[in-house]
């Protein structure tokens, strides 16, 4: 559904991504793993149209070339992003944030249904409809951000570290719901530090290192891969528990 080839991003003289190719299909959960500064967020930003890309980049969505489209048009094409740092509208209420999620034309017809779905996923948001988003707790804000992205009824949902700041319980539930969402036919592209949890949920994964893709495999394979184990799973619990 989403196909990216030869994507390049540079900030001034600094090359953040080079020759990156990846794809996500319908109903699939795909995770991108990489150390900090590897370029994961830049990748999502570039696909979402927020970050300018280099010549040669090609982004195809549902068979249509969308390489040079502006961010707001990308949403219409079915690509939604939950950015790093959430990017919610702090001075608007929770309900308004969600309503804005369905601002895209493609989302309007099913806005009501999606709203119920989101409130079902995060009951806390339903309780706090009228609260200003910026006064919500860190985790609650994350729910607003994810909920808002879902509201645009995307074909591909991209999430940049969605479990950041969520309680263990909620993280688990989030990943469960991601699986549900994918099962409904959405494609999901995920950047996540919690490699273990995400690989358990995902179908496939990419490894990214200093701006280039260095590996790609199915999630179960990656979970077994010793290199991945040491670099991204780290087995922190084992290492840290004396």
């Amino acid at each position, binding site marked *: 559904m989403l196909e990216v080839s030869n994507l390049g991003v540079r900030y001034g003289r600094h090359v953040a991504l080079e020759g990156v190719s990846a794809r996500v299909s319908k109903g699939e959960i795909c995770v991108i793993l990489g150390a900090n500064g590897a370029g994961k967020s830049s990748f999502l930003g570039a696909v*979402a149209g*927020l970050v300018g890309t280099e010549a040669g980049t090609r982004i195809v969505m549902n068979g249509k070339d969308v390489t040079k489209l502006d961010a707001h048009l990308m949403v219409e094409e079915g690509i939604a*992003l939950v950015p790093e740092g959430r990017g*919610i*509208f702090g001075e*608007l209420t929770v309900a308004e944030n969600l309503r*804005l*999620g369905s601002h895209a034309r493609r989302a309007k017809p099913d806005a009501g249904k999606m709203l119920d779905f989101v409130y079902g996923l995060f009951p806390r948001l339903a309780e706090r409809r009228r609260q200003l988003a910026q006064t919500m707790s860190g985790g609650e804000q994350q729910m607003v951000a994810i909920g808002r*992205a879902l509201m645009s009824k995307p074909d591909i949902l991209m999430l940049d570290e969605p479990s950041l700041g969520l309680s263990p319980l909620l993280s688990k539930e989030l990943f469960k719901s991601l699986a549900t969402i994918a099962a409904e036919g959405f494609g999901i592209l995920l950047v996540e530090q919690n490699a273990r949890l995400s690989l358990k949920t995902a179908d496939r994964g990419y490894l990214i290192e200093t701006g280039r893709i260095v590996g790609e495999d199915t999630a179960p394979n990656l979970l077994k891969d010793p290199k991945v184990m040491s670099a991204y799973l780290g087995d922190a619990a084992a290492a840290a528990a004396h």
Partner: protein
Amino acid sequence: MLILLTGLLLGGTYTLIALGLTLQYGVARIMNLANGETLVAACFVTFWLYTGYGINPLLGLLVIGPGAFVINWLIYAWLMQPLVKRARNRGMLEVDSILATFGLLFLFQGLMLQAFGGSYFNYEFLARPFSIMGDSFGLNRVVACVAAAVIAAALYVFLYHTDRGTAVRAVAVDPRAARLVAIDVRRTAAFAFALGGAITACAGTLLSTFYTFNTSMGVLFTMKALIIVIMGGVGDIRGAVLAALVLGLTETLVASLLDPGLTLAANYALFILVLLFRPQGIFGKRPA
């Protein structure tokens, strides 16, 4: 009662002066120092239409409003957009827009000076007594006040109860995030700026029915508008209206009961009180 109504009428006038800037500064983030010049320009155009072609100022609104909308759209697209694009943060945009609209201020003033000279202008329109509860008021002021109420209400409904309006507010809050929910930020900001300009121009038309104006008077209106906009909480229609009404009422109260020479001091006292008790503006939201 007389004082109350007079104050309300004045508040209505102030509402008119401030609403446009609320949109331009609150939403499009352009602190438009040329706001008052837009207003005065509309006064002149109204004058010219009325005295030259006999076009009733109220009908004139139908020309001036849309005309100002288009002109302000172009101003935004040509002059402000490049600044928005190159601004790395809101502070930079604020500085740039202050500088650029300061240039605009001179430009507009200069053009008006060429066209109309520096003298005072006014004309007579609806300068009839209109009696409310036994006291008589200028019909022109009453009309302006009603128009202010209508415009403010319409604007409120638009901003808070339509999707398009919510999008406008979203852009005000976070232009970057707005792009992520399929909002065309450029168009929306241009729209807000243009709408603000149109409202300011309509304000000018209405004000010209009872104010004497000249080319140099824009700054006075800009200052008044800025005070109201900020007192009400930047970008907040309800706040701006309330601030305008409160200002109108206190000024009238003080002028009637104390001394017209103290209106400004009263304004300030009020301003400080508001700040002490609601540091975020009357309706402004507390920062996180």
